[in-house]
């Protein structure tokens, strides 16, 4: 029962410049994430207590901080750059964990059937029934908060969808499709899985990955926003947003920068995922 954004995509995609813009934006974000230390003019924890809560340069602030500074006099632009780096890394590696775990479990369930399948799908059902944000909060409550565990937890987000998808696709291929045929031709099992099934379901899994990325970003930022994710002095988009809440009255740019970054990045990922899915659907017809 996963989110199907297919129809919505076809409506938005009609203006394909949007998709191009999304790709450009995501490319920019990846570039920023990779080269953050070289791009950022200041360190993310570098404070200048004399220049606190300065507006952006274009709104009359000091020329050195062109997105202004926060309540500790840290450069908002530099912090945004490092936050992108952290958020993108957590989202990417996290989503990768979910993809690998989910796909493997799903494929295993389809391969072994019987009890293994019952157990895996039972876990999937439980996971799907539990709101993941709550699940993540519980894990953090029980096991404490460190960066490694946090990435792991965030990564598990959506694993049940990979598992369902992989199980369905493998089962379909296995029972009445090309994989059943390959098996009945006497091909060895590893060949059936890695040469026949693997490449055929890779596209669908990649689409699922792309669609899962924005949710991972939003989850990571959400937990950090609640103060239960990335911990200071490290920075992340959610943390920046949380910090800014008390200054919203006079310093609008503080929430505006991380908020806009989260929204535009998640939106770009969604759009690209939808585009990929449409493209895959059409190419398989």
């Amino acid at each position, binding site marked *: 029962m996963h989110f199907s954004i297919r129809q919505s995509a076809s409506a938005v995609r009609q203006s394909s410049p949007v998709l191009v813009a999304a790709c450009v934006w995501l490319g920019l974000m990846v570039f920023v994430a990779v080269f953050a230390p070289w791009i950022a003019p200041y360190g993310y924890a570098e404070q200048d207590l004399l220049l606190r809560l300065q507006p952006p340069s274009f709104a009359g602030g000091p020329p050195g901080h062109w997105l202004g500074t926060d309540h500790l006099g840290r450069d908002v632009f530099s912090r945004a750059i490092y936050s992108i780096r952290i958020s993108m890394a957590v989202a990417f590696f996290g989503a990768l964990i979910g993809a690998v775990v989910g796909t493997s479990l799903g494929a295993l369930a389809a391969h072994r059937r019987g009890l293994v399948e019952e157990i895996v799908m039972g876990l999937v059902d439980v996971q799907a029934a539990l709101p993941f944000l709550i699940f993540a909060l519980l894990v953090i409550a029980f096991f404490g908060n460190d960066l490694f565990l946090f990435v792991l937890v965030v990564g598990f987000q959506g694993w049940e969808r990979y598992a369902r998808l992989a199980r369905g696709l493998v089962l379909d291929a296995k029972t009445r499709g090309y994989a059943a045929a390959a098996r*009945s*031709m*006497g091909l060895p099992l590893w*060949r059936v899985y890695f040469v026949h099934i693997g490449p055929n379901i890779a596209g669908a899994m990649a689409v699922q990955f792309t669609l899962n990325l924005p949710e991972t970003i939003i989850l990571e930022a959400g937990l950090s926003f609640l103060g239960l994710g990335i911990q200071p002095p490290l920075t992340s988009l959610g943390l920046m947003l949380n910090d800014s809440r008390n200054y919203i009255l006079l310093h609008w740019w503080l929430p505006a920068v991380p908020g806009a970054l989260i929204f535009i990045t998640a939106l770009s990922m969604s759009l690209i995922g939808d585009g990929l899915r449409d493209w895959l659907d059409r190419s398989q017809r």
Partner: protein
Amino acid sequence: MQIPTLSSAALTAADTPQLSIEGLSVAHRSAPQTQQVSDVSLILPAGGALGIVGESGSGKSLTCLSIMDLLPGALKQSAGVVRLHGKPLAPGRKGIRGRRIAMIFQDPGATMNPLRRIGPFLSGLVKLHRGLTGAAAEAEAVRLLDSVRMPAARARLRAYPHELSGGQNQRVMIAGALAGDPEILLADEPTTALDVTTQAQILDLLAELRAERGMGLVLVSHDFGVIAEAADHVAVMRAGRVVEKAPADRLFSFPQHPYTASLLASIPPELGRASALTSRKNPPCNRPSNATKAIGLKARGLSRLFEARGRVRVHALNGIDLTVQPGEMLGVVGESGCGKSTFGRLLVGLDKPSSGDIRAGGKPLVIEDGEAFRNSRRQLQMVWQDPLSVLNPRLSIGHQIIEVLQTHRITDDTQSRMLELLQAVNLKAEHASRYAHQLSGGQRQRAVIARALAVEPQIVVFDEPVSALDLSVQAQVIEMIADIRDRFNLTGIFISHDIRVVRYVSDRIAVMYLGRIVEIGPADDIYHAPKHPYTQALLSAVLSTDPKRRKSRSILRGDPPDPAQMPSGCPFHPRCPRAAARCRVETPALQAGADSRFTACHAVDVETSGRHWEAAA
């Protein structure tokens, strides 16, 4: 190209046709230049029956939908006019739909609202078209169900569509169509989703209703047999155009257009007569050098139980004994749910029997997955119904064949062997680099067969290999199968619901009903002189396009059975015209008759000799 033969032959000048289509074109809204239907003109004389026949994509269904202004949203009628008694019909067809022209569709289960019972469905239509309400509407609903020969009509009012069989649902749809007492009925592939014996029932019903009500009929079908059975005027469509239209008798006896002629020549009973088709006397140039010796198959007491829907046990196969001689092609025929596909999977070791055993060439079959199973694949192969799903979409055809050759180390020169195999199934070398989606249906099935042949199997099971293909392609693939069977010295099982196809390729035919073989014998004997009442009914449901070969039909009662509800005694007795008291309690065994024939029927046992079917007709 228009051949205005129909109007002059069928009508006097004073008559206005009941329905006429003039210059109809249908195009995509977004791409008006690509026409799905172009310049179609047809006439339905008063009370006549017009058949529109063509292969998939010919535009026949779109033509039919245009009459009701029901084209799919992406398409629009770009030219032409539809007239009823000479008066052009307004867009939206207000007051026409359901009241003057009614329509029935292909898949009767899907054309009914799954949430509505039969009673409200029918009385709703009665209220809409005739203004009757309450008890009067319900009485009328019962009357409608009676008029479509629905057994236990009143009790059906509370049924949901999913509780009825396909044939019963189609009867309900027809009853609904009659609610407005229309003067014309449009039937778009009304029997395509149904089994052959049910098809015969529905076609007979349509003929009776026409006679009773003087109703005009427009019948759309891909099946010349159906058209020949039900229509008195025929239009043949191809790629959106009418290529030929003529009175039915003339069209089937003397087709004018080469396309019509070639399609008619492709119908299985006529297959052997056509000289245009390839000869079976090809030299065995592609026979592998180490030509394999044919081996036989022997099944004993074969049963397969499925646990379906919780605890309901379904006996898909019920104690089958069978021997296939080396080099023989055995045809297996039966309707959906008879267990023929399960049987085929068991015979090549892709499924495990619940009891009984199978021997191939004297050795027991390997079923579990593993090294031995994989090796056994060199002996046994299977060809499936849907070639698109069994070919890997991401590997080229040539690659998939070479992979098999390498796995089983058939030859070192895999490339040239692969090309030989493609040639053997009449594919070209250029097809080797294509992907499944780049091939036509027939080419795909050829590729699947070439891949199966790559291991030089001794036994091949063909499970409905041509039923997903268009008629003209079917004939070529059947010819090809007959050809490779000779050249590769195969022992084969050919499974199909179509007894004409089976008869053409097989040496012997086994007829299956509810998981049992009810009759088995030499193909021509079974085809021309069936003994079992079920075989007789199957054959009588075969529709011929040759007016001289029409025969009186023995139509079966009731619906194709549900394997989950096995009758006592002879499984066929609830539908059998010759059922006696004994049949209800005692299951007949296969008894040997003359000419190596076996029949499982108490009635046949009693007779001294089988009567000759055609002589009796």
